[in-house]
């Protein structure tokens, strides 16, 4: 193994959180920073335009993690044998510089303000018996007041559009009346409105709800961000989520952070570099990590010593690298002891689809064109007489529909899914399908966790990460409660027939859910409850920080990126202002 000269900092993984940390260290410290990224460079603008290709970039997941190199295995319970996800479908993690941020939909909601104290607040309102049996929901070790200033800063960095409903307790018409109090307004107004926005808003108002324009990290006007980078407004081309933005209106790591990093002489990016282990001193109680080993682009194994290591390689590899390296104690579901791997959560997603009398021009739109409502979010509504806790947002979105995926949805009267009758009905209804969607919380359970798979290996012979995950009664009862409301909303939007959405069954890998997978290296107020302290610092190894949604103790219905970035920025401040002056535990 080749050993390289020591550097101050190694960052593992070049997505949103790793690049944000690199930018901060590059701008505010003289430290030498090396970023190791398994994939390649981000696509150029011309390549992103060529990527307006549903077959290659949606059906064949060309921009995503290559399963032939590395994947995950999955099972429903600890009693089952796991099987590999052989082709990505239910979630689509990215690879390369920019990671999933190069193909995200850029929805940018904040979490519910009580989410960070989920366990305490639920018990406070309903008593301890309300926490579902077998659930391991817990507080995060931070509060809304700790995180809010960082949400606000990140909205100015990425460029986020939306309509505020609550600024410092002052309620504003047309925004979300149930959002946590904001210190500042959105940097940009909502985008242009598509037909579906009007249909959803009218329907929601008619039913007594409180719709507001969706917030997203997409420019709605030409925008100069807090670092002076100017990007154009959205063109509503319809190739948004799953695609890269070919005009730069959507915030990507490559158009928001990378231009700054490229000017920093202290930050070096090594692509094609797959980290296999984080090395550490196992003898000391308050130990330190000493660096990482990785396979470089030529296939050579390298030891890179470093004083400080940031692990920011997405939920799966954050957890897997700690387990492979033995950096902490693996979670044992039988005894409840150990922390690495616990509280694996995904996100609940269910939609009603209705058939409309008039065409909708669904090929137009993007991440900014949509309406949302929080009337059934978190603890906004009373759960006293309900058999579940928490909830989620409802929305009517015009995100842009493409025909390989969108063709073939027909009324229930058409029985066969091929042939003339089906073809004719599919064509007739192709542009007349819309409805209300629900994005709900997935609370944590003792039985949903990650560990190393005993059978399946990656291309180097290292075990794959194994997901043990299934839906439980809280999700089933929540969705059963939401389905009639989604159907009512869809009818009120003008649908003549609404397809009954499927109830929650077993967790499935064959349908796209969302790319929001959380947990595994969770943050907590004490070392027996989580791998990380509330500054995302490893409880045992004070020079190791773990960034990303793997730190979330549970999923909070809102898409995770806003919270990933807010917590990463908070860690960057703590590292620069406190840790570097006196290295050691921040708590």
């Amino acid at each position, binding site marked *: 193994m080749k050993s390289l000269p020591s550097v101050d900092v190694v960052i593992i993984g070049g997505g949103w959180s790793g690049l944000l940390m690199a930018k901060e260290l590059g701008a505010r410290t003289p430290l030498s920073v090396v970023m190791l990224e398994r994939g390649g460079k981000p696509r150029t603008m*011309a390549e992103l*335009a*060529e990527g*307006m*290709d*549903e*077959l*290659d970039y949606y059906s*064949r*997941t060309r921009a995503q993690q290559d*399963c*032939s190199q590395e994947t995950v295995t*999955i099972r*429903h319970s600890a009693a089952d044998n796991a*099987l*590999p*996800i*052989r*082709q990505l479908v239910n979630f689509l993690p990215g690879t390369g510089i920019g990671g999933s941020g190069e193909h995200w939909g850029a929805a940018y909601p904040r979490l519910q303000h009580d989410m960070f104290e989920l366990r305490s607040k639920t018990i406070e309102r309903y008593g301890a018996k309300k926490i579902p049996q077998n659930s391991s929901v817990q507080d995060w070790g931070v509060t809304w007041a700790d995180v809010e200033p960082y949400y606000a800063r990140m909205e100015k960095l990425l460029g986020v559009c939306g309509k505020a409903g609550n600024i410092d307790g002052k309620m504003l018409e047309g925004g979300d009346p149930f959002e946590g109090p904001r210190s500042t307004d959105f940097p940009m107004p909502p985008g*242009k*409105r*598509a*037909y579906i926005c*009007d249909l959803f808003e009218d329907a929601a108002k008619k039913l007594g709800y409180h719709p507001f324009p969706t917030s997203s990290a997409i420019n709605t006007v030409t925008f100069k961000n807090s670092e002076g980078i100017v990007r154009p*407004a959205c*063109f*509503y*081309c*319809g*190739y948004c989520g799953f695609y890269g933005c070919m005009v730069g209106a959507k915030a990507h790591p490559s158009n928001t952070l990378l231009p700054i990093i490229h000017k920093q002489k202290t930050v070096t990016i090594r692509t094609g570099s797959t980290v296999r282990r984080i090395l550490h001193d196992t003898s000391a109680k308050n130990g330190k990590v000493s660096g990482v080993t990785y396979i470089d682009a030529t296939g050579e194994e390298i030891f890179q010593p470093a004083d400080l290591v940031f692990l920011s390689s997405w939920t799966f590899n954050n957890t897997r690298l700690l387990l492979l390296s033995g950096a902490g104690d693996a979670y044992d579901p039988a005894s409840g002891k150990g922390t690495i791997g616990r509280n694996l959560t995904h996100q609940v997603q269910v939609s009603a689809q209705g058939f409309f009398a*008039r*065409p909708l*021009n669904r*090929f*137009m*739109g993007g991440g900014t*064109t949509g309406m949302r409502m929080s009337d059934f979010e978190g603890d906004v509504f009373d759960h006293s007489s309900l058999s579940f806790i928490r909830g989620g947002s409802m929305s009517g979105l*015009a995100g842009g529909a*493409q*025909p*390989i995926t969108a*063709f*073939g949805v027909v009324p229930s009267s058409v029985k066969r*899914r*091929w*042939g*003339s009758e089906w*073809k*004719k009905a599919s*064509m007739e209804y*192709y*542009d007349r399908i819309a409805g209300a969607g629900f994005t709900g919380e997935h609370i944590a359970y003792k039985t949903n966790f990650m560990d190393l798979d005993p*059978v*399946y*290996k990656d291309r180097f012979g290292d075990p794959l990460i194994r997901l043990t995950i299934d839906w439980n009664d809280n999700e089933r009862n929540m969705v059963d409660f939401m389905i009639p409301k989604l159907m009512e909303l869809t009818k009120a939007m003008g649908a003549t027939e609404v397809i009954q959405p499927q109830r929650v069954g*077993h*967790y*499935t*890998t*064959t349908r796209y859910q969302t790319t929001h997978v959380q947990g595994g290296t969770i943050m907590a107020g004490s070392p027996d409850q989580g791998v990380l302290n509330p500054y995302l610092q490893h409880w045992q190894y004070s020079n190791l920080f773990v960034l990303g949604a793997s730190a979330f103790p549970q999923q909070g219905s809102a898409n995770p990126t806003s919270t990933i970035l807010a917590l990463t920025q908070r860690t960057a401040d703590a590292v620069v202002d406190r840790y570097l002056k006196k290295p050691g535990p921040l708590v």
Partner: protein
Amino acid sequence: MRRRQFLVLTGASIGGTIVYSLDRRFSMLSSQEKPKTIRIPLRFLTENEALILTAAVSRIFPNDESGPGAKEAGVTIFIDRQLAGPWGRDAHRYTHGPFAEDAPPEFGYQGKATPREMYRAGLKDLAGFDRLSPEEQDKKLEQIEKTPFFALLHKNTLEGMFSDPVHGGNVDMIGWQLVGFPGPRMSYAEDIDKHFGEAFRPKPMSLAEIMPGRKLHPFEDEDNEKSS
């Protein structure tokens, strides 16, 4: 090297429709013309397999009074190229065993066979399919409706109908025209907040048209580009 195979179509067999060939030139055949033969070079399929496949996708997505179907859109050519490319040999699928052919459906396809192997076996089981009557063909398809091969065939038929013409199907953007999809046009900034409740149908454009002069890199050509 395998012997070069062609999909040979006669004018009589395809009626007055458009056929797309690999050099991306359209051949328009009118039914008045004398039967004329078109030879399309195949990359993976044999001629016999291509004829069976063409007949099968034509029953899944038929040419009927609602418009042209999979044969006219060049779905056979699309599938042939996909099979010849990296997808056909599972270049990007996790292919380490153990496999579990009988896995519950929530775990997706857990078998060992590559798309190439599934097509080779699936088309063999349909031997003679192209010579059956449409009613007999539908009966045969109903028998295999629940198989992984049919699911793949169905999925690939839609892909061939509706993917960008750079991939060999959706000839002349036939599929997009059927549903009013305009393709990868760059901007609707002037239209997104208009046309409420009315069909807005811009003329479709393909990737080759929105990026004139640029050499495109469809995924199926990845192997050729690596070796060249």
